């Protein structure tokens, strides 16, 4: 069933890409030029318009990976496995960018590039888990076995991440009471418009990227199969009922 849904969405992925480009350009224009600077943060608030959507999208990408992995272990659909692999590497990109932009925002605001804030720590751990996931996939020769192992890692990581965030929060409040609130932004109308646009744009972009990446993995399998290197699982399951 989900196989068919992915295929349907694949067919219209160009629309996702176009809509993403539109939203992001509009969001960039409003965020950079048309919106007024924030009262407290000044021009720095503009970093939020890229940072927050990137961070949201990376959590969304991990949820896609998490539920996709559960689905894969349950139904063993190779296309879902390809999708999980695609969203893992894209999630890693979004997480890295979210961390970098967050760090750039923190320097002028909190006068430090890095602080042991629960969110920062859980995002870093997320990046470490994704790094492990990508390495794991490369180190296993059999693609089916690799998919299974990677799915196990993604599920354990998905359950662990909320616990990590929670425990770091406890640990922080115990040791150094937070000298600054993480929520430096009070949401006002001016902020909301570019933020929403960029968020929607990033989500669409993520959907588009996952589809293109899934297609790449699928086509690579097809190429290998055509050259006779090994029988592609993806295509094998298509021909057998």
């Amino acid at each position: 069933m989900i196989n068919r849904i992915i295929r349907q969405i694949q067919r219209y992925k160009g629309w996702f890409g176009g809509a993403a480009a539109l939203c992001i350009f509009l969001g960039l224009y409003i965020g950079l030029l048309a919106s007024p600077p924030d009262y407290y943060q000044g021009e720095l608030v503009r970093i939020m318009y890229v940072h927050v959507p990137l961070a949201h999208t990376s959590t969304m990408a991990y949820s896609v990976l998490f539920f996709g992995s559960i689905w894969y272990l349950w139904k063993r659909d190779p296309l879902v496995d390809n999708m999980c692999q695609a969203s893992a590497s894209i999630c890693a990109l979004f997480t890295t960018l979210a961390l970098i932009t967050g760090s750039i925002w923190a320097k002028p605001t909190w006068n430090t590039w890095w602080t042991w804030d629960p969110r920062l720590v859980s995002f870093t751990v997320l990046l470490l888990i994704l790094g492990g996931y990508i390495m794991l996939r490369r180190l296993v020769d059999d693609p089916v076995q690799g998919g299974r192992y990677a799915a196990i890692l993604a599920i354990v990581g998905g359950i662990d991440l909320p616990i990590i965030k929670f425990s770091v929060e406890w640990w922080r409040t115990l040791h150094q009471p937070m000298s600054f609130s993480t929520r430096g932004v009070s949401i006002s109308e001016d902020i909301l418009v570019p933020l929403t646009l960029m968020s929607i744009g990033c989500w669409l972009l993520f959907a588009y990227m996952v589809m293109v990446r899934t297609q790449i993995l699928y086509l690579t399998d097809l190429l290998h199969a055509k050259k006779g290197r090994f029988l592609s699982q993806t295509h094998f399951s298509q021909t057998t009922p």
Partner: protein
Amino acid sequence: MTGLYTRWALILGATLLLAILTYQHYQQHLSTLSMGTLLGTPPVTQPVRIQGMVKSGTLQGDVEHGQATFEFVDGAASLTVEYQGPPLENIRELKTLVLIGRWDSQAQVFKAQDTALINNFGFVAAAYLISVMALGWMVFAMSQRVMVLFKEIKESKLYEPEADSLGHKE
């Protein structure tokens, strides 16, 4: 292949346009003159923006009603400021901020009408550049890869199983 490159040329063009517009906006509304440049050049009539720090012990006047005089320092240079404008809520001694106003070269006084927070536009530009370039490059590389794969699949020959020792094919 050409369709892909046309699309990406359009995207690149739009990004460049946005970058140029932003740069102009920055030049006109956000960039600050250094104090040395302000004092060195012939008097300018339109309002300018200068960045500096309120010197300690010099802030006088009724800040809550938008009137104040103070010494404004930027490195070695300093000048006297007469502020008259909206109430200054977040001004205090040793505060770094941006003043908008005119330089009165006869009286040697900077007549400020408004303030702004210091703009760290470098940080904003860095954040935008890094994320836009990384995402753009990634998406571009991926779409290009799809095209290359399609081409390769079309060109590659179908695998023929090798004949076994008796000459039969599998």
